[in-house]
């Protein structure tokens, strides 16, 4: 029997092929979903209750549709989604790995899903234990001393981390540190977060090997620098070999070192940002720890810090009652090590079922309490963040254990390297060396020879049953394609993806830009006019008619 690739979605259903109308176009005057019997209670007249200046001049223009049309409309839209449940999703830097369904089921358990965050401590012990165990697991995995689980996304984590950096410098009276240094390959969120945190971003260039230029960094590090932000491996999928030296240089200049955890999937279970010298970091649970994301989340971007920054964390944080105890987990140096998760030699125990089991024993039946760090920057989210996402992440960590997490990283790196080797003859490989969990190739060769660009390759992939990779990023590579296959795609899917990419390059070389001008053709909406959409956006139904 012929073997097929499970991640190839070329059979995804699209009936008829037309664009779905908007809900307003389906509206018909007077049509309703549900028709309720008369209650016998008199209508409330707004004029009797509200001052005239607060009243609208007319009824809002809401769509009027039957339940039948309403359900059909949204069902059709839902079928036109592409998700990790549909097929491969090699969107670089996003770690779109498959999310195991068992963890969804677990998060849906009424005991977890129905608990109110307003319950008193005596009725919240299960949830508090869950959050505490996740915090400790992340400490072990990342080499940090304390975590807040509140931030709901990676960028939110960056902001919280930088606010902690600000609070730290304020506490030492160092008020002039207003600059954050980011590499030119950084995610766009880094400079944006710096700006939102009241800081200014300064870019440091990469070398032609794709790594931070240490000499250029040296020149930038002065008494105005609050922190450096680094992603490791970086957005080119390359490990920053000088990372320890870079963190030391930052510290010598009085700055802190921030680790952007976007690419943690490459190193989870293998090395730890805390050991590299970072002081503060975020972890994208929705990437590395396989909780759902895309389409707006909800995600989770917990922020971890070294001991000396723990007093600034958002609160409240669950901890054993009485705070710093003999086995004190929070706030004392080396204390985390008592749980077997401390030094780098103990990575094997980090986050394992065994390690957490030990943590369970240590805490035992000790009562828990909510703790507000002394100089907390305040809440980062209502209650405790996207709690059900946190439950899924802890389940993922416990089920995999340390050896499993290490295999996750190793397989993700192997898959990316396999893919890179399989396509590097057809595309330019700008750095000519092994990558980590994602690879960046350039379409510059096809642009030069045939006028075909990265965006065209992305569109052509859609027609052939694969989600497009990240394109035109990182900015330091011309016409970049950034591919992150993750560890969850099979060798058959990787082979099908590689073959398709090589075919596209071959077709482009043979036939020129004509092959892509009107692609994609097999999607519900064809090539969209991105430039006009950005220049003259139509944002309301009224604009549309006008």
């Amino acid at each position, binding site marked *: 029997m012929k073997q097929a690739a499970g991640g190839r979605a070329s059979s995804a259903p699209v009936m008829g092929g037309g664009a779905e109308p908007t809900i307003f176009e389906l509206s018909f005057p007077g049509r309703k979903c549900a028709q309720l019997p008369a209650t016998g209670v008199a209508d409330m007249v707004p004029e009797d209750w509200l001052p005239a200046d607060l009243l609208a001049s007319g009824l809002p223009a809401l769509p009027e549709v039957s339940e039948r049309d309403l359900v059909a409309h949204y069902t059709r839209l839902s079928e036109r989604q592409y998700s990790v449940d549909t097929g491969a999703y090699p969107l670089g830097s996003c770690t779109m790995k498959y999310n195991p369904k068992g963890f969804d089921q677990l998060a849906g358990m009424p005991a977890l899903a129905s608990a109110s965050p307003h319950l008193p401590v005596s009725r919240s012990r299960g949830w508090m234990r869950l959050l505490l165990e996740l915090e400790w697991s992340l400490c072990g995995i990342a080499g940090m001393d304390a975590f807040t689980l509140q931030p709901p996304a990676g960028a939110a984590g960056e902001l919280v981390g930088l606010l902690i950096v600000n609070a730290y410098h304020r506490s030492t009276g160092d008020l002039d540190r207003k600059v954050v240094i980011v590499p030119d390959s950084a995610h766009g969120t880094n400079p944006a977060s710096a700006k939102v945190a009241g800081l200014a971003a300064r870019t440091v260039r990469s070398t032609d090997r794709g790594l931070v230029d240490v000499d250029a960094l040296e020149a930038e590090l002065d008494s105005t620098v609050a922190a450096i932000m680094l992603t490791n491996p970086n957005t080119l999928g390359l490990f920053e070999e000088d990372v320890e030296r870079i963190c030391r240089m930052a510290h010598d200049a009085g700055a802190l070192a921030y680790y952007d955890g976007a690419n943690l999937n490459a190193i989870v279970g293998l090395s730890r940002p805390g050991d590299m010298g970072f002081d503060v970091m975020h972890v994208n649970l929705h990437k590395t720890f396989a909780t759902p994301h895309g389409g707006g989340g909800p995600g989770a971007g917990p922020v971890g810090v070294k001991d000396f920054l723990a007093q600034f964390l958002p609160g409240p944080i669950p901890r054993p009652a009485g705070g710093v105890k003999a086995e004190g987990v929070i706030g004392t140096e080396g204390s985390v090590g008592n749980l077997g998760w401390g030094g780098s030699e103990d990575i094997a125990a980090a986050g394992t079922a065994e390690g957490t089991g030990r943590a369970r024993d240590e805490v035992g039946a000790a009562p828990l309490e909510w703790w507000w760090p002394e100089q907390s920057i305040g809440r980062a989210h209502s209650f405790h963040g996207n709690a059900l996402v946190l439950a899924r992440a802890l389940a993922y960590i416990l089920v995999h254990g340390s050896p499993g997490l290490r295999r996750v990283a190793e397989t993700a790196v192997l898959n990316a390297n396999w893919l890179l080797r399989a396509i590097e003859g057809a595309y330019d490989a700008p750095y000519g060396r092994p990558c980590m969990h994602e690879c960046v190739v350039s379409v510059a060769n096809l642009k*030069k020879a045939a006028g075909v660009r990265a*965006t065209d390759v992305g569109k052509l992939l859609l027609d052939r049953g694969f989600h497009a990779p990240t394109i*035109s990023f990182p900015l330091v590579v011309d016409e970049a394609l950034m591919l992150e296959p993750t560890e969850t795609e099979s060798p058959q899917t990787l082979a099908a993806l590689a073959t398709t990419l090589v075919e596209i390059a071959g077709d482009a070389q043979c*036939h*020129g830009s004509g092959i892509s001008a009107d692609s994609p053709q097999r999607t519900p909406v064809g090539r969209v006019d991105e430039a006009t959409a*950005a220049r003259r956006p139509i944002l309301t139904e009224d604009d549309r008619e006008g």
Partner: protein
Amino acid sequence: MLQRVRLRLMRIPEELQYTKEHEWVAATGSLVRVGITDYAQDALGDVVYVDLPEVGKSLAEGDILGEIESTKSVSEVYAPVAGTVVEVNGLLDEAPELVNSDPYGEGWLCVMEIGDAGGPEGLMDAAAYGAITNG
């Protein structure tokens, strides 16, 4: 079926001067007109928004002059000379695509007045700029 490959040759007018950051400069006395090159607009892709400085702003050479947003990215434009901004291209508010369609003409960005008497220095001629963009 073999489709014809349409490849554009990047235009580099002889009469202009260039920076390695892909700005062009046209000097007339103490006034210099500034824009981005054909190569730069092609690399950026479809331009959707141009952020220009206030008239009257003085800039050192290499300062950020403005930002150009395309469907791919947001890129900074650097002041090719030190001086004061005396005029900006108001057309770009409504029609940022002029940067793509006519980078050396209607897609100009601003006019700067050079502070001291000397003309712009350290810029490349067309041949030198052509050499770095043909690599």
